[in-house]
Structure formats: structure tokens, C-alpha cells
């Protein structure tokens, strides 16, 4: 540290200052947003019945907490994770099979494209009839969304692995299984992780819309219910919880990504 030149020390200081300024601004925006919201509602410049306010949200959170907010959170979280995990794992397996058999991939390609472009939510009413209303249909919709994203994304990652690396493995006498485990899979870990990142966001969409369609519990249910009885406090409070949850999960995946990629330098 003491070996650095003055110029370098100045540079380090400047970088540190930049970081502080950035963080300060980020926090200020957050605080300002809620303060403004609170003030506007309190002085009735905006209608607090329609726009709610942070203090009303907090009060509502307290009320909801007593009437089982945690179980709503638990159900939504469960549905999201179940849809995300089943969809991603199944999608990954299908992607591996399609990589294995280029013929199967070519045959199924148009169907995949159609499935990918179809808004899976449109199948909601069908799925409710087929698998029954409630949690099972919500998980099914979410699964449908995440499985297609996983297949397309993971397969793309597999196919983007440098051909030279595969040729090299062939010259060393690798079998197809070895080619997969020694090159294709490890080389596509970064794309696979970013697909998972994308997928977790998609799963939230699937779950909330699924809950909008049919449910008796969950954050999506709370939001719809709040809207129906015209209690915007419930809508806002549930949305804030949802915000916190999805952000938390996203950062968790990013941390996981960092941990995985760090090992590869």
C-alpha cells in the first residue's frame, strides 16, 4: 500500500469517493421516493385511498401479519420455487437430450419455436380444468413458462461451445458422454446460470398471474383481493413484500453465480 505513488493514491481516493457518491445517491432516491409518497398522501395532494401511503402500508402489513401474511408469503414462495426448480431441471434434461440427438432437435425445432412464442398464460384456463384450481395449476403454468426458457437458453449455451474445443476432445479420443461432461457442460455453465437468472424472474410472473387467475392464498391473491374490495393498502403492501422477495431471490442467484464463476477465474 505504502509503495504506491502519490498519483495512484489520488486515483484510489477518487474511486472511493465515486463509490460513496453513487451509494449516497442510490439511498437518497429510495428515501426521497417514500418520503414524497408519504407527504403527498398526508397532505392529500394524491388521494391516499387510491395511492395508499408508506405509513398506511406499514400499518396494513401489521394487520396482515396477524391474519396470516406469512402463510401467503410461504405459498407464493413455494409455488415459485417449485415451478422454477421443476421447470429448470426438466428443461435442462430436455436440452441435454436435444444436444445429444441433433436429429431430434431438428425435428422438434418448429414446435419449440411455437411453444416459446406462445404466451403460456393463455393456457391458464385449460390447465385449471385439467389439473384443478389452486396451487397445482399455478405451479403447472409456472413450470410451463420456465421449462421452455430453460430448454432454449441451455441448448443455446451448449451449441455455442467452441467447436475447436470439441474437436480437440475428439482428437484425444473422447466419447460423446465424455465430450458432454468434460467440455460442453463446464463450458456452458455461465450461460446456464444466466438462464436460471432469467428463469427466476419468469417464474415470479407465472406465479403471480396464476394466482390472479385462480387462488385462495398467496401474494397474487392478496393483490387481486385488495383490488376487488378497493383496499389499495392491501395491494400496495403485498406488492412491496413481493418486491422485497423477488429482489432477495435475485441477489441470491447473483451471489451463487459469482461463487460458481469465481472458481473458474
Amino acid at each position, binding site marked *: 500500500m505504502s509503495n504506491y505513488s502519490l498519483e495512484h493514491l489520488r486515483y484510489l481516493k477518487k474511486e472511493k469517493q465515486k463509490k460513496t457518491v453513487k451509494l449516497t445517491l442510490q439511498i437518497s432516491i429510495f428515501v426521497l421516493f417514500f418520503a414524497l409518497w408519504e407527504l403527498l398522501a398526508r397532505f392529500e395532494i394524491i388521494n391516499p385511498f387510491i395511492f395508499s401511503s408508506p405509513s398506511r402500508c406499514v400499518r396494513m402489513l401489521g394487520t396482515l401479519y396477524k391474519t396470516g401474511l406469512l402463510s401467503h408469503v410461504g405459498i407464493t414462495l413455494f409455488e415459485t420455487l417449485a415451478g422454477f426448480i421443476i421447470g429448470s431441471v426438466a428443461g435442462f434434461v430436455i436440452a441435454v437430450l436435444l444436444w445429444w440427438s441433433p436429429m431430434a432437435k431438428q425435428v422438434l425445432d418448429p414446435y419449440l419455436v411455437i411453444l416459446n412464442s406462445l404466451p403460456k398464460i393463455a393456457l391458464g384456463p385449460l390447465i385449471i380444468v385439467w389439473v384443478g384450481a389452486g396451487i397445482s395449476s399455478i405451479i403447472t403454468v409456472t413450470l410451463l413458462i420456465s421449462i421452455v426458457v430453460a430448454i432454449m437458453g441451455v441448448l443455446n449455451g451448449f451449441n455455442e461451445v467452441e467447436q475447436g474445443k470439441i474437436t480437440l476432445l475428439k482428437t*484425444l479420443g473422447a466419447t460423446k458422454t465424455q465430450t458432454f461432461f468434460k467440455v460442453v457442460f463446464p463450458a456452458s455453465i455461465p450461460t446456464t446460470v444466466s438462464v436460471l437468472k432469467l428463469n427466476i424472474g419468469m417464474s415470479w410472473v407465472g406465479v403471480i398471474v396464476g394466482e390472479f387467475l385462480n387462488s385462495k392464498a398467496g401474494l397474487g391473491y392478496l393483490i387481486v383481493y385488495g383490488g376487488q374490495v378497493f383496499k389499495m393498502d392491501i395491494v400496495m403492501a403485498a406488492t412491496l413484500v413481493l418486491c422485497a422477495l423477488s429482489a432477495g431471490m435475485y441477489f441470491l442467484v447473483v451471489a451463487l453465480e459469482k461463487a460458481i464463476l469465481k472458481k473458474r477465474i
Partner: protein
Amino acid sequence: MAEVVKLENISKFYHTKSGETEALKNISLSVASGEFVSIIGPSGCGKSTVLSIIAHLEEPSGGKVTINSDKQGKGKGQIGYMLQQDHLFPWLTVRQNALLGLVLRHNKTEEAEKRVDNLLKQYQLDGFASAYPNQLSGGMRQRAALIRTLAIDPAVLLLDEPFSALDYQTRLAVSDDIHFIIKNQRKTAILVTHDISEAISMSDRVVVLSKRPATVKNIYEIKLSGEQTPLQRRKAPEFSTYFQKLWEELNENE
């Protein structure tokens, strides 16, 4: 000297929907044990195809490839291939990369590991055995790639423009390195290059291919006075004569 690689009347056609292209025509060539042979030719003439066929990555349309007089075994496991890029895997250490071929062949015996460690040591990479490829210089990466190839103890090394991704300065130094290692290990090698100087400076013989469909146009025996490294060979008095001849030979194709 024993023949290691023998090509007899190799031909190769490529098929696409719009037609077929004759890439190779009647290529015959034999390479003796310990020999260093270069193949040069106009770009796109199918130089690399010759290597792919020797390595059995591609099947010839006609003709016969024999490696160590073994026709049935198809020479599998006897071929070491070095490609244009080193293709070291960034998620493996240098030592793990070097051991890759052995792992794939379920051949990772203690003895083989010792041999690889020796190679790493002999060619100044032992200090980097547990480093990752991105910590190595371009030259060191090529050396690591060569050791990975040597680890499986191939009968013949196929070098497909292995230096073309390097800058000129590094390229000269790495050619020296690689040439030294190959000679030191008494390996037979076939180098494909578009660089005439590189071919002359490294090889015992230079094979000139014609443009598509490629045939063997001529084979030059390279005899330079004062034996030595490729870099020194570039200064030999006969060097420019060979260069002139090969240059003309290649340009006749145009």
C-alpha cells in the same frame, strides 16, 4: 527408417446440396519415424483436410491411411493433434489440462502422471502446474497444449497452424520451443502452415500442394548447413534459396 504414416492415393470429396467439391486428389505421402514434415499450399487447398483424415476426424472418399502399419486400429490413440488455438480449458489447471487425454482414455496411471509431471518440469511449466491457463503467456500456453498432446504418447503429432494465433515475435520463440520439444522427444510430426519461412525453418521435408483439388505438387528435402534451432536455420545461407523456390512453386498456382 520405419514408416509411421502412410497415405496412399487419398481423395476427398465434400458434398453440399449445391454440388460436390473435390478437395483432395491422389495424395500419397509417407512419413518416417522422427521426421518433421511440413505441408504448404495455397489457402483453402485442403491442407487441414489431410490432417483431419490422418487423425480419422474425417473419412477419405478413397485411398488408404496407415499408421504404424496398423490398418484395423485406425491409428486411434496414436495421433496427437495441435490446433490453431491451444484450447486449454479455463476451468482446469495446467496440470489437469495436460492430463486430459489420459483421463479421457482411462489411462491415468501413476506412471503416466509421473511422465506428465516430468514433461511439465522439463519444459519449465512445473511452477505453473496448479495455475490456470489465463495466467500463462501465449508461448507457455502453446507449450502446455503440446504437453497435453505428448501426454498420451502419440506415434505422430499433427500440427494445424498451431502458431497462427500468436504475434510474430512470440511465434518465432514458440516455434523454437515446440521444435526443440518435438525433436527432444523424438516425435514424428506433420505441420500444416501457410508460412513458407516457418515450413523451411522447422522441417526435414516440405510438401507443396497444388490448389483445389489438391495434389502433391512437389516435395522438397530441406538441407541447411549447420544444424540447429528453427531461428538459427532461418539464417542459413541456403534458406533464401529454398524460400525462393517454394515461393515460386506456390505462386505458379495462381
